């Protein structure tokens, strides 16, 4: 795991205490996670909005294609947020019923 070495080993900024090293490592992991999550979302938006907005690819992107893609992007993110909150709500309800 090379990504950890720069932090724990210290070839970047010198980190003094163990506590600081720990914090830096945690921040790095959380950051990597959010980057991976954003990448996955962008890939899905690309796929689904391309399918939706460009059914027959022409010689260039028309302004209506562009407007469709922009709106689709916004809509997909809204759907993502709705799915996320709805799924988490449901899972929590199930967990409470189970206990």
């Amino acid at each position, binding site marked *: 795991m090379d990504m*950890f070495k720069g932090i724990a080993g210290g070839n970047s900024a010198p980190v003094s205490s163990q506590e600081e090293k720990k914090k830096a490592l*945690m921040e790095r*992991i*959380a950051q990597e996670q959010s980057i991976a999550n954003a990448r*996955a979302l962008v890939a899905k938006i690309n796929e689904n909005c391309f399918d939706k907005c460009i059914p027959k690819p022409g010689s260039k992107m028309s302004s209506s294609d562009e407007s469709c893609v922009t709106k689709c992007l*916004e809509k997909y993110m809204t759907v993502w947020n709705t*799915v*996320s909150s709805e799924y988490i709500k449901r899972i929590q309800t199930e967990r409470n019923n189970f206990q």
Partner: protein
Amino acid sequence: MDAMDGFDNKTQQELQQFVENESSKAKLNGIIHDLTDRCWKKCFAQTSSISSGSLSSSENTCVKDCVGRWVDTSYLIVKSLEKMR
């Protein structure tokens, strides 16, 4: 793990716990990505072009119902399999 060198036991445990929490968050995010994709395809199959960036109330209902019935389906399958044993 080399990265753990120089950390005392307590810190190693804390880090391990942190990584476990982060990986369950990653797993949950993966489920939400899949489910969003699936429900998008279900709810917008008939829409030929996107005319608004926000959700209409019927679209919002469709997405929420899609999530609910997905969870119902997975529970039903588990229950049915248990009966078959």
